[in-house]
């Protein structure tokens, strides 16, 4: 049964939107860290997206995406009142959350939305949440308002200095770790280079660092092994063993290469889609 879109909010025009979906069975069972598999058309590809929020009482889940290929372009063409053909989940292992002190939640790009759900979990568990978010420039920063509801402090950076501190999230993170010895965990969700940089930053501090990985997936339900990542020298399957792993153990270089495996075909597909849809 197709999944209705109740609300759509454009966060970065043409590039990133927030969708509120009516998916009561998923909302009821989803925890921070979970993801869903989506397919937008009968000819479409299955893609994974991390759940950015849930409201079990209303039966809704929130997803936020960046338009990168045909599937996300198809998603961006939908509006409130339309339905998504297939939404399947919740999948993956949920974030490990326990009351332990101060957690730093680092988010970048659309990862800030996914991070928001994890921050909410830590906030509710009684942890002190320090949000650290960044973007290239002010207009590309999203989910600040939503995240601020579940963060005791929110630190912001932009590459160009148009908002918050000029610099990278890792600058803010390093300063924090140098002065705040109560931080028991750093969680990072965002682009692969950002997560890799966060893991490098925290390594010397010996702080537990969890990253939420976004490899290519096909079924998302533990069948195909497309999403395998090397963690601590061992092959893990992000869809059933993850998607969250110890950032100090992840082979990010391999992940980055594997994410590019279908780049040429992704371009062919998107070009065809754009030529048929005139945008």
């Amino acid at each position, binding site marked *: *049964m197709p999944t209705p879109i109740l609300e759509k909010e454009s966060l970065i025009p043409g590039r990133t939107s927030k969708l509120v979906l009516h998916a009561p*069975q*998923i909302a009821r*069972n989803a925890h921070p860290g979970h993801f869903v598999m989506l*397919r937008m*058309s009968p*000819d*479409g*590809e*299955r893609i994974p997206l991390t759940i950015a929020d849930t409201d079990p009482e209303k039966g809704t889940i929130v997803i936020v995406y960046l338009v990168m290929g*045909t*599937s996300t372009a198809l998603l961006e063409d939908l509006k409130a009142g339309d339905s998504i*053909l*297939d*939404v*399947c*989940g*919740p*999948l993956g292992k949920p974030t490990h959350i326990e009351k332990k002190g101060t957690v730093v939640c680092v988010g970048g790009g659309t990862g800030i939305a996914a991070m928001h759900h994890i921050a909410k979990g830590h906030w509710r568990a009684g942890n002190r949440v320090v949000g650290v978010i960044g973007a290239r420039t002010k207009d590309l920063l999203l989910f600040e308002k939503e995240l601020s509801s579940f963060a005791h402090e929110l630190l912001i950076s932009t590459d160009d200095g148009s908002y918050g501190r000029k610099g990278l999230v890792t600058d803010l993170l390093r300063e924090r770790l140098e002065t705040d010895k109560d931080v028991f965990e750093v969680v990072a969700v965002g682009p692969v280079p950002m997560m890799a940089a966060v893991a490098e930053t925290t390594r010397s501090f010996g702080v537990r660092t969890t990253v939420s990985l976004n490899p290519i997936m*096909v*079924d998302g*339900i*533990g*069948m*195909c*092994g*497309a999403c*395998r*990542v*090397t963690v601590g020298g061992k*092959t893990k*399957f992000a869809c*059933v063993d993850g998607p969250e792993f110890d950032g100090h153990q992840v082979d990010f*270089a*391999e992940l980055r*290469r*594997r994410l*590019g*495996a*279908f780049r040429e*075909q*992704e371009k*062919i*597909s998107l070009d*065809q889609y754009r030529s048929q849809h005139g945008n």
Partner: protein
Amino acid sequence: METKEKKTVAPRTDMPCQPADVRARNFDEVALGYTKEMAMQEAARCLQCKNPRCVKGCPVEVPIRDFIGEVARGNFDVAYRIIKTTNSLPAVCGRVCPQENQCEGNCVLKAKGQPVAIGRLERFVADNHIASSACEQVTGTNSCAVPLGNKKMACIGSGPASLTCAGVCAAAGIKVDVFEALHEPGGVLIYGIPAFRLPKNVVATEVNGLRQTGVDFHLNHVGGRTVSVTELAREYDAVFIGVGAGLPVFLGVPGENLVGVFSANEYLTRVNLGRAYDFPNHDTPAFLGKNVTVFGAGNVAMDAARTALRMGAESVHIVYRRTRAEMPARHEEVEHAEEEGVKFAMLSAPLRFNGDDEMRLVSVTLQKMELGEPDASGRRRPVPVPGSEYDLPTDLAIVALGTRSNPILLEATEGLDKTERGYIKVNEETGETSLPNVFAGGDIVTGAATVILAMGAGRRAGQEIVRRLGGM
């Protein structure tokens, strides 16, 4: 076998196929099926044994002698009803069963080299039959049960085990809901077995028949996640778990995560479920390789190799550490693969995958093997030949070494006993798990096995469910 007079037995009737050079470049079905005349000619070869050994070789005990007798007399509809008394998916089984190890392997004519082509006849009977109702499609009869009060049962997964279980229960008047994790029903029949071996409309016909008899398919429902076994067990009078195989097994050699190394499950799912053969009209791409190497020697390896050819590969090698004689694939698949141009590198084992600076696969290093002393399985153990390493240029490697159990439902379900190998433990007579009125069957119980074994398990559990719910 004792025959006083030596009778000459006619040779087995060939089944027409698409020419190898044509079919190697399309996804249409390879084997075209018997005509009525061919079927009757082949059926006439059957000796109609008093004690038919073929039946004992069949996991669901199809009354083979009887249906073949009817085919020989041209009574095809009677033959269909006979098959359907024990086999709910004959059009599927006729195409994918390993007959040479089962019914045909037991045929007394095999001693003369050519057993009756039981699989081809089963397929003919199924394809030739046009059901007059959904009830007949599912059960082979037009006397389906009236609804059994308000009894209802749930199947998790929609592969051969669940489809069979659903059919048995629905025919007895039990309301059936099937919960499938993917967006299309059929399980391995859809995502795994390629259309050139099992056309998708064969599966669709079976699923539609079930739908019309009142079975509802709930897609995108992951057992253990979207719906839990516990809540289904509360809501339904019985539950059947048939979630199939899980994570692929890899070789465990260096370089296995290079770009260009895939599991057969991923490669085939992209092409079959995702219709990557029609990219970019369908959005899911498959990785394109010029020089493809497939590891393994079962049906899945043959499927992957033949799919790669059809996707435009220039050369496809199957690498296996034993010899042709030990290959577990159906003989017909091996023959078809060879006719289509797949090359076999026997007695070879991979040592490592080699990549370029961008971590893209460029070759695989293989080592020659020779057969030594027999191992625990009774087969001669392959042992490496020192100094025999060589590189095979490869830009797409497909690993088809089987699967492990899928952890999702098992981890999420408390009180479900598992075997040492991590599969679901069941009572062999009934298929019941450690949870009362929760049954399981297929690959999630046995580990990777055949379609017909999964169907047998689905049938056994379905019959037990019907008995308990008072439908006999």
